[in-house]
């Protein structure tokens, strides 16, 4: 067979290899010589760089500690944060009720719906009507529903609630010594006329004493998650005492139904231990559920958890949205549609097909060339993203190697998507030069919508899309690289922490019910490769039978 004495197999293979190299190289050079390729890649780079810039700015700016349970706020503006008010048993929504304010002794009230007058020097509460006074305490400043006497505006002309209206908890000045109020509280001496259909009560405070207001920061990140690592041990500790409530005053009257702790249950998880957290694991020791009692470990430090959460959310989000949904769908649309179609349209296909190369091979090598350009771009970009996130991310290690691995996983998934879309779009371009491209556009939009649905947690319909399987693969890779993400997700859900992971990573989906991310990842890879192969084979079969004019 061969004059130079080379073996048959070697000759055939090396020759095949050379042809593959030539077509692949030609494709790459062709794409490289198109301005649009560079525009598209530049825009892609710009997109990822702006995301990186956001990331770096986020890292440099640090994280504001978050008050997860909200008890650092002073809702009634009486100077005491809600957490301190809870301890002293005062009402955090009532400006007259604060630590040291004592007890309100009610001396009397108008009956609901009655009309009447009452005179005296009292503390007036929940009052709606008109107060004619000889003395009004103007030292009461701040506090919800407390009239700020010094800054009362004049009332408009006319009758209250007929000609004008005042806000809840506010009032206005009708005369030199007369004010109109609406559900407000104040201290003064005079005569109160209740508005028809409204209410007022009066009395005085006893046992007042002074309590130093605590700074709000005492009630931020004050109850960290206490986890021994053993699901059978006693976990969870109420660091700030707002579950156990030891030394807190007994509630003299039942909380209003809208009160912050009206439904406070010290043993909500029902394991007989008040104020703990039940960590439930499966037989292999994986945490599958977390049931905390109320107000336990509810305000953990952001340092330990939320940083990591946000970091992972950024990587998963960028991987899914920027890489798969934007690069993964639009790069193929831009680059692969014309791989064979353009050659046919231009007529340059004749040069290539007059060579001893099979048409089927030709398609494969064209796609290979496109993949080298687009896949190379994705790989470089993921490497860059990985270097930045791995060196700037939270944690003790200087370089987070796992980040790097995950980024390669994302690049791998994206390249699989690029291959699948490349094969689909190329085949569409082959099938019909007239309609193929339009159909490709519609498929691009469809894939995008399916990706959005997948992100939103839909599992059934998007199965019929490439983007679903790619996102699914990333879910699996995340679980392989960071097995504790699922735990972080459970913690975030159990303690109601703000979590970015939840937005991009939905636990029920990520193992396809196999409980093994390797299996689900493998399934996704197989599905994607199958789609790619099927589309290429279909394209080849079409192209083989195609008569080229």
């Amino acid at each position, binding site marked *: 067979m061969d004059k130079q004495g080379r073996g048959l197999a070697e000759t055939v293979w090396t020759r095949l290899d050379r042809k593959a190299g030539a077509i692949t190289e030609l494709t790459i050079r062709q794409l490289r010589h198109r301005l649009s390729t560079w525009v598209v890649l530049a*825009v892609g780079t710009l997109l990822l760089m702006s995301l990186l810039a*956001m990331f770096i700015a986020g890292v440099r700016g640090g994280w504001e500690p978050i008050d997860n349970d909200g008890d650092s706020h002073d809702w009634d503006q009486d100077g005491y944060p809600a957490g301190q008010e809870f301890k002293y048993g005062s009402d955090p929504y009532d400006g007259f009720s604060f630590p040291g304010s004592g007890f309100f002794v009610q001396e009397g009230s108008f009956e609901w719906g009655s009309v009447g007058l009452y005179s005296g020097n009292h503390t007036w509460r929940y009052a709606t009507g008109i107060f004619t006074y000889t003395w009004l305490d103007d030292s009461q400043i701040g506090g919800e529903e407390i009239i700020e006497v010094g800054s009362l505006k004049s009332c408009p002309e006319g009758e209250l609630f007929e000609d004008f209206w005042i806000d809840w908890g506010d009032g206005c000045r009708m005369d030199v010594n007369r004010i109109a109020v609406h559900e407000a509280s104040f201290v003064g001496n005079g005569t109160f006329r209740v508005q028809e259909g409204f209410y007022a009560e009066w009395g005085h405070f006893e046992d007042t004493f002074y309590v130093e207001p605590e700074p709000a920061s005492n009630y931020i990140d004050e109850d960290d998650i206490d986890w021994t690592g053993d699901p059978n041990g006693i976990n969870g500790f109420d660091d700030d005492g707002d579950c156990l409530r030891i030394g807190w005053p007994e509630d003299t009257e039942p909380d209003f139904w809208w009160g912050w702790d009206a439904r406070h249950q010290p043993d909500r998880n029902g394991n007989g231990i008040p104020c703990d957290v039940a960590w439930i694991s499966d037989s292999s020791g994986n945490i599958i559920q977390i049931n905390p009692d109320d107000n336990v470990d509810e305000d953990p430090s952001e340092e330990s958890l939320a940083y990591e959460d946000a970091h992972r*959310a950024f990587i998963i989000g960028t991987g899914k949205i920027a890489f798969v949904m*934007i690069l993964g769908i639009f790069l193929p649309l831009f680059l692969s549609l014309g791989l064979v179609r353009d050659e046919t349209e231009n007529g340059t296909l004749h040069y290539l097909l007059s060579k001893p190369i099979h048409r089927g091979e030709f398609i494969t090598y064209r796609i290979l060339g496109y993949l080298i350009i687009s896949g190379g771009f994705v790989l470089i970009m993921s490497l860059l993203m990985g270097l930045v996130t791995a060196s700037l991310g939270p944690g003790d290690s200087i370089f987070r190697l796992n980040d790097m691995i995950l980024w390669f996983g994302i690049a791998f998934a994206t390249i699989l998507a690029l291959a699948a879309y490349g094969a689909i779009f190329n085949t569409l371009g082959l099938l019909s030069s007239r309609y193929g491209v339009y159909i490709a*556009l519609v498929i691009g*939009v469809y894939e995008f919508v399916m990706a*959005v649905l997948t992100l939103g947690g839909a599992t059934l319909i998007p199965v019929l899309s490439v983007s679903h399987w790619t996102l699914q693969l990333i879910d699996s890779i995340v679980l392989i690289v960071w097995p504790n993400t699922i735990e972080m997700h459970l913690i975030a859900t159990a303690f109601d922490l703000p979590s*970015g992971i939840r937005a991009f990573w939905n636990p029920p989906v990520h193992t396809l019910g196999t409980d093994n991310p390797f299996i689900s990842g493998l399934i996704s890879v197989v599905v994607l490769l199958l789609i790619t192969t099927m589309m290429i084979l279909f394209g080849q079969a079409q192209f083989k039978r195609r008569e080229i004019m």
Partner: protein
Amino acid sequence: MLDEDANVDEFSGQEPPTSVPISQPESELGQTRMEVAYGAGDGDDDAKAIVARKASMGVLYEQIYRPWDGELGPRWVRNYAIFRHHVYGIFSGKGHRHYNPFVRLSILIIFLTSLTPIAMIFLSVTISGGEGSDWLNRMWGVNRYNLWGQVLGYFPRNLCMWPLLTALVVGGMISDDRKNGTSAIYFSRPVTRTDYTAMKYLSSAVVLGFVIVFSYMLYYTSAIVFNGEGWAYLIDTLPIFLGGLLAGILLVITYTSIGMALSSVSQSRFFAAIGFLAIIFGTKVVALMIELIFDTTIFYILSPYDSLAHVGQWLVGIPANYEHSLALSIISIIIYNAASIGLLLTRVRSLEVTRE
């Protein structure tokens, strides 16, 4: 390029030069040749007649150019012809710009889907009374949210259909001319480049407006007619309706600007179409992602859709979904439009009349 050829008859600014043969008519010449070729006849009888025609060896034509000195139609008539050429193509391909059947089908489908609320309102009227009717009216009846939603909301419509529609309609407007060199058909006639651009712009905007704005107006009017609403209702809802109308027009203008600019950049209609989709979708999801991770909505000003939605929410008077100031969204829309139109004009100005 075939579809552009049809233009010729529409811009008969000048008549083609006519040529008149100096010597004998062509028909006789042809006959002579034919007889020679076939050796028709027996030969001798008509031989003389044939030989006598010396001129059969060649004919010189005197070229007479008769300049057309009629009154040139006013500018708007010429421009209207361009406009008409592009718009009528949707209905009939003959003599007008050719729209791919797939594009026509898409326009039809998108238009029909945007009319679904009308069908629902009609349904609610026909089954009048009862809970079903109430529910239908609540879901699809005229209110601030639905008026806003008709042009800017409703997931598949705002994010898929309008962008897809724009991509399909606007994608080839200028890129086709660049690819086929058919802009020469316009530029060799008394049509300025600005007129050419403006008319192309206007025609795409009208096609988009037909689907987006017209369906909106249809929705509002049919709701009034079906429910037999009175003047009081009209006075109550008209300002909201006008706000939504303005939002719809803004949407059409902005999308057209971006699409036309992309179309003028490229020679491939698909590059323009994909580019448009990439801009709309890309900015939207990236901004969404940044909102989810970094808890800021400011990146939405990069997204044309979200800027439009923000302004639209203000126009119809519903609470905004965005934390950043409305002014930023307005500026974003203005910048997008200005940059696109600027790009479009520079590209058309530098458009070479020869086939590129």
